[in-house]
């Protein structure tokens, strides 16, 4: 048990002393996960709205596919992205392998079905009377879309948090596509995996605590926003 407590003590020291290696992994994680969640929200919210709002043939099949993709294994995404961006792959010329943008692509693929699926659920559970109310006030199509989106903001926000949590805590994509290169593509999760293998519990625990702290801050901000709006 002692090594666990020592780990916490070591974590405290690393964080307070501003250990460069630790903060490099934190920065890489925050950068890549924020970028990928932003991309997945930009693409996923309009797609999720359309999936939840409109009736079209094949909607149920599409919904089943999206729901299935929500459980995509990260190592499988890592493998696919690796295959596409490796030098021999179709996107090999872009030099994305072992870079943060490469990890970002994989994490966007991971988060996108979650954002689409949960946004669609939020829109589907929207009261039908909302549409009547908005239209009866004289809204045009664009205003109807934007107001409807705003009205199901809480559901969409819940989807965004779920997606952010999944992106921040994944290991498979970061490890396979990023290569866990120190100072460059090492993220919190890959660093924890590596340091634990090396028996360096201190850094592992420190990074784990940072992950928890980030999750706590995100949830705190969201809960503040929900109260405010």
């Amino acid at each position, binding site marked *: 048990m002692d090594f666990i407590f020592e780990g916490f003590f070591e974590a405290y020291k690393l964080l307070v002393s501003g250990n460069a290696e630790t903060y490099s992994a934190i920065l890489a994680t925050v950068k890549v996960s924020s970028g990928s969640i932003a991309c997945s929200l930009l693409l996923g919210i309009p797609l999720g709205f359309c999936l939840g709002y409109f009736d079209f043939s094949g909607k149920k099949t599409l919904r089943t596919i999206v729901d299935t993709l929500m459980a995509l294994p990260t190592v499988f995404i890592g493998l696919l992205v690796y295959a596409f961006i490796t030098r021999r792959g179709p996107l090999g010329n872009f030099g994305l392998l072992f870079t943060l943008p490469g990890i970002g692509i994989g994490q966007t693929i991971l988060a996108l079905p979650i954002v689409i699926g949960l946004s669609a659920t939020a829109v589907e559970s929207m*009261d039908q*009377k*909302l*549409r*009547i*109310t*908005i*239209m*009866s*006030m*004289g*809204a*045009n*199509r664009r*205003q109807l879309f934007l*107001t409807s989106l705003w*009205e199901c*903001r*809480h559901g969409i926000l819940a989807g965004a948090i779920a997606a952010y949590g999944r992106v921040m805590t994944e290991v498979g994509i970061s490890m396979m596509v990023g290569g866990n290169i120190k100072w460059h593509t090492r993220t919190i999760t890959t660093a924890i995996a590596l340091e634990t293998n090396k028996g360096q519990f201190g850094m592992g625990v420190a990074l784990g605590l940072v992950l928890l702290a980030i999750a706590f801050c995100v949830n705190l901000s969201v809960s503040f926003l929900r109260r405010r709006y």
Partner: protein
Amino acid sequence: MHLPIYEIRSLEHSYGGQPVLSIKHLTVKQAHIVGLIGPNGSGKSTLLRLLGLIERPTHGEIFFNGLRVEPFSDEARFLITLLPQEPFLMKRSVFSNVSYGLKLRGNGRDIVDKANRALSLVGLDSKDFARRPWYALSGGEAQRVALAARLALNPKVLLLDEPTASVDAASAQLIKEVTLRARRELGTTLIVASHDWQWLYEICDEILHLFKGRIFGRGRETIIFGPWQKLGTGIWGKILSDKQQLPVPPPPNQEAAAVIHVLSVSEDRSTIAGEGIVLSGTVSRLSLERKTSQLFATILVGDLPFKVGLDIQQGKEHTLFPGRTVFIRYRLDQIKWI
């Protein structure tokens, strides 16, 4: 001569292939009050949604001020507004709900004044209510906020779907007064669906009876719904709660609805004039019909309400008052089936 504000041509509407509304031709005059009467499922709400340009009719055309319109038509969307039966407020404050439509119209400068005025029109003090969130209101307050949001827009047409169905008596009275005020002060055309016949007969220029998606009458008809039972040879009817028999001719089917026109009413069975079936009932309500300046009486026969129009002199002669037992007369050969 003014164009009618609405004209409907060959309108048909269906949900999932099931027809719910079919109107060959209908016009609504500017600044008129039109009442829609009919049982649940008769197509009143569907008609209001189509007139409110919320839905596109399956077939047919709707003209507004002479122009063909459909959902999102720029010619009409800022002029027509619909208040649905169940109040629905967006997840925002009372003020934001009331000012939403004004913001869509770009009325930036005096939004606060207009929203506050609309709130006070429906009897809500803006100081107390403007900042309240949507969930901190009672059903009646929510309905009044929803109405204020419509009134703030100074609409040309206000469509009301059972505006007083889910509110208490005081709120209902206030809603009735405010809607009439909009018509009086702004010349707003009102189209109101309600089960409160008495109110509709009091205020409306025209009453439309709907049943199974069709307009079958524009007056004071009483509709009695099936099922019907055989009372004797060739005579069908109903046995009412007070054991009286209500005879009708053989119906086309057990569930058909009979349209009965009451010919006369008297407080004395022996003095009731003319041939026909005579039944006794009790006057349950009396009111003054706006369009004809006639008395409008609801007479409960058993538990069925019959609607009767009388001129004021007749009313005085018969000394009608709620609670009074009277006799009504109708003729079997004048009953229509729908």
